[in-house]
């Protein structure tokens, strides 16, 4: 029986443990903190609990439009919101513990370090497995000049621990974490200003997605300052001042620093094992997620390949299968979906239009606006679209980009098709249930292939160009 030791119990580590133990390995899982990692304790899960309360609050605020009369005051209570996510996190954490117990995984609570190429030291004991998976994850990045103190200037980890919310906040960053927190805090009544270093939010998404997200944020009163690289943050006046060089460009009561994450690759004994990292500190791995040392793998955030929990889990299963000598399927990075729980929600997979251009691909675009769907009107959420990018010559699906309700769910249709190297024609032939948001996928594909059922005739659009979809 092969013995696998895993450093770190997040969505890479605990999933690796579960998978390995289910396939006959003896597994030792080492983490100083409760299992579940950033995802469960400071990331995906608590924020999604908040997102759901916010969605409910937003809907209640519009109850009138839905034909509902609500009397009395409607407000969010931060302490109760925290209570809800704490309870859910705790319950899910117990679930992971039970899963490990079910599979007879040996869990060691402690900080593990490599002592050499085949030994891990943790607490006062040593573990000498046949193979090692490093799944130590990442932490919020913050340069010293940002003066993060956790109270007035914090990262996403700190914010979830705040005992109250400020009246106003600066969010430094423009990626998933910055945008999700901007929407959450705005709904909870915080005056939000995002300071983005680039010209748009969510620069990893298709440009059209950013346009709609930014427009929706503007409608709600979230302020965005573009093209401003903050060089330092300081406590000043009654709050926080954000500087670009010498100039103050924004102030607020507190600040959230969300400028990315950095790998937890220091102080885990990599140098003793002879494992190299790149300039960013990411552990260097090959496509099998092997480090410089045979039988030591690095998966999840610590290898810098993705930064998404589900990508970490997928990498972990592949590495485990390889380590155990099982048949494995290579993770196809192009087919990993991205889900962003902003308001409106975002889901995308594959290439953006810009990436298709960069790769010199010949492509056609199909797009369908959600406001042409009955379901979107019933939901009262009509902003957004589905856009597909299809290879011109072969008809293969290259990318699917959705913004709007349920975008994080419907993206999986695109993920499956891209994973299977499928074509738009197959999606067109697939009957989509009515009335759903997923119908927009069908219409976008039809649009790419020539004519969507619920769009003006393409040959009339020139004359009637006011009806062109943006």
């Amino acid at each position, binding site marked *: 029986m092969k013995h696998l030791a895993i450093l770190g119990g997040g969505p890479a580590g605990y999933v690796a443990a579960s998978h390995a133990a289910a396939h006959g390995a003896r597994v030792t899982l080492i983490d100083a903190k409760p299992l579940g990692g950033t995802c469960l304790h400071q990331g995906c899960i608590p924020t999604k609990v908040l997102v759901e309360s916010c969605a409910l609050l937003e809907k209640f605020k519009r109850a009138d439009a839905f034909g509902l009369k609500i009397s009395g005051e409607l407000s969010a209570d931060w302490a109760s919101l925290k209570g809800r996510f704490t309870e859910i996190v705790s319950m899910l954490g117990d679930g992971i513990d039970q899963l490990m117990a079910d599979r007879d995984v040996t869990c060691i609570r402690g900080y593990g370090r490599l002592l050499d190429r085949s030994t891990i030291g943790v607490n006062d004991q040593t573990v000498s497995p046949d193979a090692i998976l490093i799944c130590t994850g990442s932490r919020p990045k913050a340069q010293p000049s940002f003066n993060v103190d956790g109270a007035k200037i914090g990262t996403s980890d700190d914010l979830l621990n705040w005992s109250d919310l400020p009246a106003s906040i600066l969010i430094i960053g423009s990626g998933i974490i910055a945008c999700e927190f901007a929407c959450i805090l705005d709904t909870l009544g915080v005056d939000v200003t995002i300071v983005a270093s680039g010209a748009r939010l969510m620069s990893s998404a298709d440009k059209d997605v950013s346009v709609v997200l930014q427009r929706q944020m503007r409608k709600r009163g979230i302020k965005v300052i573009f093209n401003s690289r903050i060089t330092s943050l300081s406590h000043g006046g009654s709050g926080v001042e954000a500087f670009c060089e010498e100039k103050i460009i924004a102030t607020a009561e507190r600040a959230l620093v969300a400028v990315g994450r950095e790998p937890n690759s220091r102080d885990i004994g990599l140098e003793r094992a002879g494992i190299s990292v790149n300039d960013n500190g990411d552990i260097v791995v090959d496509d099998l997620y092997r480090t410089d040392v045979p039988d030591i793998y690095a998966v999840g955030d610590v290898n810098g390949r993705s930064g998404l929990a589900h990508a970490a889990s997928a990498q972990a299963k592949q590495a485990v299968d390889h380590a155990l000598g099982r048949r494995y399927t290579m993770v196809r990075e192009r087919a990993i979906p991205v889900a962003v729980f902003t308001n409106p929600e975002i889901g995308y997979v594959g290439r953006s239009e810009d990436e298709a251009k960069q790769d010199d691909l010949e492509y056609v675009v199909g797009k369908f606006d959600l*406001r042409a769907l009955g379901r979107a009107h019933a939901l009262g959420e009509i902003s957004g679209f589905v856009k597909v990018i299809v290879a011109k010559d072969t008809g293969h699906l290259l990318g699917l980009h959705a913004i709007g309700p349920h975008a994080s769910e419907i993206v999986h249709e695109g993920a499956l098709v891209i994973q299977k190297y499928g074509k738009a024609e197959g999606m067109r032939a697939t009957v989509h249930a009515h009335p759903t948001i997923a119908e927009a996928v069908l219409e976008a594909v039809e649009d790419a292939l020539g004519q969507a059922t619920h769009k003006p005739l393409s040959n009339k659009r020139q004359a009637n160009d006011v009806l062109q979809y943006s």
Partner: protein
Amino acid sequence: MTSFNIPDDRHYHEAHLWLKATGVPGEYDVGITQFAQKQLGKILFVELPVTGATIAAGEPFGAVESNKIVSDLVSPISGTVLEGNALLRNAAHLVNEDCYGQGWIVRVKLDPSADLAGLLTAEIYGSRFARISPAR
């Protein structure tokens, strides 16, 4: 055939926008026509360009969201944005109610090189409806 109000005190662009001189030389207000307004349906939001933004003929400078569609506003001319109609921020429905008046969208200062010759008169713009299918 539905008939549309097309006042003859201004210029028109084939993308269903109008331009009207404000009285100050080189300054024009821009809005959408009644035909466009009817086609769009209930207008929910107008995305305005920021003051000082330069806009180019043929390029989108903003967008109109209705309950049916999101439509780019394609600029009929090149110039600089003097102001967006601040009233529309909280009252986009003014574009439905008074598209030639209170529902104007932006005020622009034309580039010296800007050419109004390519724009349409009310008569010519109106004649287009003979070959455009009426609003559904």
